[in-house]
């Protein structure tokens, strides 16, 4: 069983605020799901990558600006909940 402290630690890493009730439920759910994953322990091999038809290798593109929709930056900033002029506002970092 995963400890309560462990769930709290992971939740903090994941930037998730959980209620007391949620923490207890997740403790149970995570434990049973992770126990199920144990069936992988006995599997051997698989260290080599399997290449298949039409595999892409290093799909790269030229480092060019390809902005076709001129309103996109404004539209994207409009989607921010807290903004001023063309800036996204955030609270103090510390």
């Amino acid at each position, binding site marked *: 069983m995963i400890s309560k402290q462990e769930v709290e630690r992971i939740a903090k890493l*994941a930037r998730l605020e959980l209620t007391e009730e949620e923490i207890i439920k997740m403790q149970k759910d995570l434990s049973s799901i992770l126990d199920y994953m144990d069936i992988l322990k006995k599997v051997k091999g698989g260290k080599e990558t399997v290449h298949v038809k039409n595999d892409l290798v290093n799909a790269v593109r030229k480092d060019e600006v390809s902005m076709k929709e001129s309103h996109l930056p404004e539209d994207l900033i409009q*989607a921010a909940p807290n903004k001023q002029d063309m800036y996204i506002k955030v609270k103090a970092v510390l």
Partner: protein
Amino acid sequence: MSELLDLTISQLHEGLRDKKFSSVEVTKTYLSEIEKKDPAVEAYLAVTKDRALEQAEAADKIIATGKSFDPLCGVPCSIKDSITVKGMQATTASKILENYIAPYDATVITRLKNAGSVILGKTNTDEFTMGISTENSAFKVTKNPHDITRVAGGSSGGPAAAVAAREAVFSLGSDTGGSIRLPASFCGIVGLNPTYGSVSRYGAIALASSLDQIGPLTKNVEDVKLVFKVISGKDPKDAQSHPYEFMESDHSLKGLRIGIPKEYFAHGIDPEVEKIVRAAILKAEKAGAEVVEVSLPHTEHGVAVYYIIVPAEASANLARYDGIKYGLSVQEGSNLLDVYLKSRGRGFGKEPKRRILIGTYTLSAGYYDAYYKKAQEVRNLIKKDFVEAFKKVDVMFAPVSPMPAPKIGEKTNDPLSMYLMDIYTCPVKLAGVPALSIPAGTMDKLPVGLQIIGNYFEENKILSVASQMEKILQ
């Protein structure tokens, strides 16, 4: 005009071409059917009537020029709410995106619009497409049109139910672990999960990027082909998309080698489902196909691998919902960290939280090797299983799910038993091969699908085989 609701895409195309009816008439017929049926089925999260009628008028203008037009022109469809359409909501059934309006079109939407399709609205899904029943939607549970006490399947339950209830001619959904094939099977329609990389993911709200694929849900096999033709192919905006062009081809059932993966009939399958799938296989054999037993030895590990890889990728993909850039923002507390914690804590539902936690756990120091790295290794073995099997056969036939549509609420308290519903659909995804579900029969009125699995980029072979199967299964 309710007979319009029975028409497939090519039948609508002929009718529009011959001026038997207009796109506005077809669109109005579908809109009034939605009004009538959707209060019970609950396939739609939003119906955009005015926009749909504008698009239908535009399509009628194209048709009136008398020049040739795309088969999808003037044809009304529904779009899963996890795919962005400019100016429309894209909630992916999450409270964290409840008021989000997409500022751009997904590439598949650009292609549908260029073809002249009419978008009726956005359809329901499990939150962030995480689920098999739409019971994880933050807004509503979509009902199975064949029995409204049962689920429509998921995560593309809204798109599937919309087609089955005649509330759309076709839908676009997405498949990460079975999310197109499973609801298609439960709702008695056709659904294609394309080869990974054959359809652009640009504008598909990401769950697990190494698996996500957009695909069509339709009334029949020919319709899948017509939609797939339009949405597939290289997109510079998705680095994982392939320079792929769909080419139709004929593959007669006579002499076709059909593989039957023995592990897919091993245990846990409902005997009635097995009977229906085996009967379909027998019909193919009678039509001249050679049926060969094959083995996919790592099938039993598929669900475990899948539920390590998906939460790991999801925990990274869902980090973007921070209360700053878009979506729900809880401005309580004194600093930036509080905004993150509270916006995410209140915005995400149970299943995204569960998966973010599992993903964060398996990727964290000390656990990475035991879970994530191990899962990637076993994923290689699963992929190899498929590569080996396709050296011996042309396609594989299998069940889609071990049982027909469950009752609403039947499985909601046990996430693991929900996860196991993906047992026959998620290995296909881990390998990256294409697969389609077509109706094979019914048990107590509940549809059961047959899964046809193909080799990489052989959608044409799947579709050719499926259209022959469609005829002999009727």
